[in-house]
């Protein structure tokens, strides 16, 4: 199985130096991604899931941010140690990204064709005409009607859902190994969300692309992901296959998240569960479990030390004092 691993993130740390102190947005995150796998990273806003993925591409705005340690091994090489030239050959080519807000992620001053062609020409060495043909083909795959005509339009002439389709077509135009989708449906209408997720699913399967799907919604990952990482305050608190996470959540935070998903199959008269409190301020966080103020099962030890990560089997981990040695 390990031979299939195309991306290995080891103990990744990304810090931001702010006036108020050091913000450890990502603090020791590790996970693997296998070829063709869909990995979900779930967490509340501010839990560091987006920063993790920007760090993988070395796209963290610097200053104030910097990568404070760790490795991102892609096909045998550590991306973080590569020269800029090397990383640029990977960005958009081997690993590409789509972002949350399709309204702001396309350049409003350039035609769709310009924006798509420049990537294809850059990475695949095609001439402009061939690149345009390829772009049209990708738009068609992404479900844009009349792509030959629409490719010469500007982004503002597309609706939000259509723009996200354009983003997907653009991201997949070089048939990357990995597609990082950072909350791709959050800014869209509910009816369009499912279509976009379906599109990502279908295209990645067809092209054999592994997907990292970042979202705050467990509902989104449930239908799509092979495995799931749950993040809280810059760290992964629980990791496992989708089945394991949903049928047997270990961490109290994961349990809380699952309880707070509304379910249609069980008719209930009770109020929907929600985790008490607010996500924590990760600036100058003390060495404790950052979840303890909101945890129903918090113990004394939680307030003094961050829990050791307990290995519960192949790729199944949880960071909580209720499990492993701490118990």
């Amino acid at each position: 199985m390990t031979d299939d691993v195309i991306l290995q993130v080891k103990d990744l740390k990304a810090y931001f130096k702010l006036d108020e102190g050091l913000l450890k947005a990502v603090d020791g995150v590790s996970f693997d991604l296998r070829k063709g796998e869909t990995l979900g990273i779930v967490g509340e806003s501010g839990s560091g899931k987006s920063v993790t993925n920007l760090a993988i591409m070395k796209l963290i705005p610097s200053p104030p941010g910097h990568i404070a340690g760790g490795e991102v091994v892609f096909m045998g090489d550590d991306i973080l140690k590569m020269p800029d030239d090397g990383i640029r050959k990977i960005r958009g080519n081997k690993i590409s990204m789509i972002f949350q807000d399709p309204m702001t992620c396309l350049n409003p001053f350039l035609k769709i064709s310009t924006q798509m062609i420049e990537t294809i020409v850059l990475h695949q060495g095609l001439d402009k005409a061939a690149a345009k043909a390829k772009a049209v083909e990708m738009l068609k795959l992404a479900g844009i009607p009349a792509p030959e005509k629409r490719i010469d339009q500007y982004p503002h002439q597309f609706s939000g859902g259509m723009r996200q389709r354009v983003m997907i077509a653009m991201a997949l135009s070089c048939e990357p190994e990995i597609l990082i989708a950072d909350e791709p449906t959050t800014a869209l209408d509910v009816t369009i969300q499912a279509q976009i997720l379906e599109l990502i699913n279908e295209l990645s399967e067809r092209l054999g692309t592994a997907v990292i799907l970042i979202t705050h919604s467990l509902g989104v990952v449930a239908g799509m992901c092979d495995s799931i990482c749950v993040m809280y305050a810059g760290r992964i608190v629980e990791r496992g296959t989708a089945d394991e996470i949903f049928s047997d959540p270990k961490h109290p935070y994961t349990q809380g998240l699952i309880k707070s998903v509304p379910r249609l199959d069980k008719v209930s008269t009770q109020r929907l569960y929600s985790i008490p409190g607010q996500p924590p301020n990760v600036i100058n966080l003390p060495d404790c479990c950052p979840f303890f103020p909101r945890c129903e099962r918090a113990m004394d030890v939680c307030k003094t030390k961050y829990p050791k990560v307990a290995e519960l089997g192949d790729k199944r981990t949880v960071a909580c004092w209720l499990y492993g040695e701490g118990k």
Partner: protein
Amino acid sequence: MPLNDKNNDRATNEFNQYVKPVSLWADAWKRLRRNKMAVLGMWIVGIYMVVTFGAALLPFKSYTEQEMLHINLPPSFKPAGVVALGQLEGRKADLEAAIVKSGRPDLKQDLERIENEIVQLKGEIDTDPKHKRVYILGTDYLGRDMLARTIYGGQISIMIGLIGTLTAAMIGIVLGSLGGYLGGWIDNLIGRFVDLMYSLPYMLVVIIIMSMLPTGSNSIFVLYIAIAMISWLTISRVVRGQIISLKNSEFVEAARSMGAGSGRIIFRHLLPNSLGIIIIYSTLQFPSFIMNESFLSFLGLGVSAPRASWGTLVSEGVQGMQLYPWRLLVPAVAMTVFLFAMNFLGDGLRDALDPQSKNRN
């Protein structure tokens, strides 16, 4: 920071860190103090205010008193008598040389006059206390102290800046909030008018107004009005925009649903929430008032004698700048330093009060 004593009502920023639960103003003050140039600007502006408005209480010389023996003295820490004597003797030597060279008899009269002055000065130098004065920044073409003139000139310039800013802010706030709150034809009318005024080169209008008015002691007052009348445009636009965006916000709807009247909504909810942006624009406008006043005074259309603003002083200084450069440089530097400080303070205030400002530059 202990985690268990957090409030839930704190605002968070893009990294989800908690912004300190202090008031907007305390927070802005903190941000302002971190900006070194803004703090420096604040100090300089403060010192200028104290010195210019406290001038009457401070031991400065008169800015109107003329002393014919002290004309055009360069800046010096020596007593005026010594400086003046040195200057006269230098001029005498120059004249003698020129007479020898050109043999022009008409220069003899000048020589005689200077010799008389030297005699007069030598007679008075130890007895008359006025020759003990020290003009650290020199004197002007009527023998007036440049330091005092610059300080009193600053008083007028800053006054005009203050009154202009306040008047413009008042008119701008009233018309802006009227248009923004009421909308409809009133808003349209005000908007058209503002557009029209924007398409006029407004300093030229002020020039017309100023040149049309009879010259007299009241012209300074007219100047305030003329400048303010035409400077409220930006503020009114900004306030209007702010009011419109706030008018439909939830807290205003809440106030309205609880029966608050228009007046209460404008004065208790809309204006206080627009105060930050009003302060920013007013501070940034302040230096331009001073510049505009000085601009008019420079053209001879502003403050009239014996009063003088920085612009008047610069304009006077230009006349003899080749021989007496301090007459130009002293008011020019004084004014520039103040405007520099004001601009830094304005920029700092904008960054402090409007951290998400889109038009930061």
